[in-house]
């Protein structure tokens, strides 16, 4: 893999050859595409600019080909329009002027096309640009950009202030429309925005949130048909004397000033929805609360037992915070958490995912076409890493949705349920999750070896549903509407 510097990444099939390709964002050098040539061999193509943070792979223009959108350091996002045959043209998103850090795509207004939600990291922007009276108009805060058609975007400003390391679009209240969840760093609380008619209103669905939210993901960890929301934060995963001492100066130098009703806690948070629709943090009870100085944290059924596991990358390098540590770096081991089958988690070191390379962006996809999920991590100041899945457990079904003729050709926002003799498993199609990291539009279902596949149910983004039967394990099913 190639040198990078801790920005995000994205994975999807960019050339339609059936293989998942990798896009690495880079803050220092040009961004790159790693074309998957099969057998875990990749060919690097550098794009003409870097200075980028996040990656969204999404068909912006509805031509059926996946484009690439990068969020930039101090610039509005750039669009790399997929021209076919591996060629891209650099473009802008007209009307999108916000200097976004995190971004994501879904049909936010229910009109059938894909809209963009994005938010800045104001504290860093102010430091880099210097605060001025133009700042709040053109730079910071959080936005919902409505796709007006013809490539044009209009915007609603959701918030004047954001320190958004993560942005997730997820239907929290099951009303068929995604809410905008903004994960803010440090003292600024996370924000949730719900669309009511033509306007956006702030919602408070969570009684507890992470303090320094670095990453957001949704996944049904207990297979009850309702997705849990997972956010990462900073909390040591070990409690030995050395680890405690390494964290101690940091905790005293960056105190968290609480206030009445402050929902923030310095831990990972796992929001679990109860029957009444209320969310409750159960990260501690389910042993997912502490994964170190965590960045991207995502769900995936890594061992294909039918239960979503968690992988979290971590570590921090900061001269001002860690001047007492060798190399001024908090060296930590990425954490793999295996789902115990009841929605709780156990740390597993034997999976071989405990890299110490200071991961930032991370995503999962089947990169060697063997049916299981492999992992790519974009590290800070170290080469990116690819972890080939050799757990050899269970079996899988992969599903790709196509909706030609619509403005949402890859059915972003669709919900899928795979019913098997060993239970039902639920997924959704989304553009991005974790920290600055794009997800493949191809969905992976893991399940125990020998399970009988009964049917696949799809609820498309417009609410229409489809049913697919006669499914076989270890195959990729493309469902075209």
């Amino acid at each position, binding site marked *: 893999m190639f040198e990078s510097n801790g920005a995000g990444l994205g994975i999807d099939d960019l050339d339609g050859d059936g293989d998942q390709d990798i896009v690495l964002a880079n803050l220092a050098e040009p961004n790159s595409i790693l074309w998957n040539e099969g057998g875990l061999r990749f060919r690097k193509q550098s794009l003409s600019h870097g200075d980028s943070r996040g990656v969204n792979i999404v068909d912006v223009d509805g031509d059926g080909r996946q484009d690439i959108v990068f969020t930039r350091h101090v610039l509005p996002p750039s669009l790399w329009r997929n021209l076919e045959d591996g060629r891209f043209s650099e473009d802008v998103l007209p009307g999108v002027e916000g200097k976004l850090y995190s971004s994501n795509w879904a049909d936010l207004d229910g009109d059938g096309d894909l809209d963009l939600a994005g938010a800045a990291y104001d504290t860093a922007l102010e430091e880099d640009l210097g605060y001025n009276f133009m700042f709040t108009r053109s730079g910071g805060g959080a936005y919902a950009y409505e796709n007006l058609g013809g490539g044009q975007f209009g915007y609603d400003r959701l918030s004047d202030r954001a320190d958004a390391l993560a942005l997730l679009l997820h239907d929290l209240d099951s009303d068929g429309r995604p809410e905008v969840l903004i994960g803010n760093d440090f003292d600024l609380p996370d924000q949730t925005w719900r669309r009511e008619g033509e306007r956006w209103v702030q919602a408070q669905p969570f009684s507890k949130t992470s303090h320094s939210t670095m990453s957001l993901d949704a996944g049904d960890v207990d297979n009850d048909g309702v997705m849990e929301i997972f956010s990462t934060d900073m909390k040591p995963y070990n*409690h030995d*004397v*050395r680890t*405690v*001492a*390494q964290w*101690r*100066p940091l*905790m*005293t130098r960056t*105190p*968290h*000033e*609480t*206030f*009445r009703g*402050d929902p923030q806690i310095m831990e990972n948070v796992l929001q679990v929805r109860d029957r009444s629709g209320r969310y409750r943090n159960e990260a*501690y*009870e389910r*042993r997912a609360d*502490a994964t170190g100085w965590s960045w991207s944290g995502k769900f995936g059924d890594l061992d294909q037992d039918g239960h979503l596991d968690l992988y979290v990358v971590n570590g921090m390098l900061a001269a001002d915070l860690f001047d*007492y*540590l060798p190399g001024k770096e908090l060296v930590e081991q990425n954490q793999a958490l295996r789902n115990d089958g009841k929605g709780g988690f*156990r740390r597993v070191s034997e999976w071989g995912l405990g890299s110490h390379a200071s991961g930032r962006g991370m995503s999962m996809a089947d990169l060697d076409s063997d049916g299981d999920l492999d992992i790519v991590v974009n590290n800070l100041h170290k080469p990116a890493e690819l972890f080939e899945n050799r757990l050899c457990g269970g079996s899988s079904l992969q599903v790709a949705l196509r909706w030609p003729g619509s403005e949402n050709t890859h059915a972003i926002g669709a919900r899928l349920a795979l019913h098997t003799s060993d239970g039902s498993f639920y997924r959704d199609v989304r553009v991005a999750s974790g920290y600055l990291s794009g997800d493949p539009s191809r969905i992976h279902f893991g399940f125990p070896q020998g399970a009988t596949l009964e049917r696949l149910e799809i609820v498309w983004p417009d609410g229409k549903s489809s049913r697919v039967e006669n499914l076989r394990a270890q195959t990729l099913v493309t469902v075209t509407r």
Partner: protein
Amino acid sequence: MANGSGAARLSRYPLLELLHPREQTRAVVLLLALGLTGWGALVWAARMPVWGATSILVGLLLVPGVRKWRADLRREGLTVMVLSVILTMQGFHSLEHLAQWIQYHIFHWQPQRSSGLISAANAEWVHFVWNWGVVFVVALLMFRGIRSPWAWALLAWTLAHSAEHTYMMVRYLQVKQELGLLGEPSVSAQGLPGILGRDGWLATSMLTGDSWCGRLPGLTTTMRLDVHFWWNTGETLLLAAAGHAYLRRRAATFSQRQDWM
């Protein structure tokens, strides 16, 4: 020396009678009023640390306190006097935990800042020394006759509580030493979790962390401040129950002796 039965008579609330300042009431009220005023002035106007101002206040109240306990010694004997002292001091210790609880849950201070009134000096040493002191006094009281199921429960409770503080003291000293090696000797290592509570040994150790006892509601899910609020509440209640049982039994025995005479 008193014969230890001067005031022993059958009362429904012997503890309240024992703890009543009696002839020292006026001095207690006066010094408490003066002390609280001075406490406020020292903390807010002179910027004295809370633990310093509180130490002065406690020192002031010790004057009538010592007089009262000397009277207890003359009237009731050594055992009851020691009981009176430990009940009073444990009451103050409970106030310390209540102050921590209020600071965290009502004022929403950070856990590190919610260190009560005296513990801010050094929470680990204050509570470690105090709790082993309580174990010693409880053992002494039992040796001198305060024996009942309540007293045995109190001894077990205080030993367990002190074991937890010993674990925390060892961790505190180890982390302090490690911080010194990192070149950060001034960073506080106070407030680390103990055996019980959220992120405590039971919840995180290789032995128990992943087992059923790693996530016992309350016992391994509550934060240290709350765990020790309840440790201390239990200790105070058991001490009161053991004292009450002893004073009632003692008064009943005295009453029987009077009947026989």
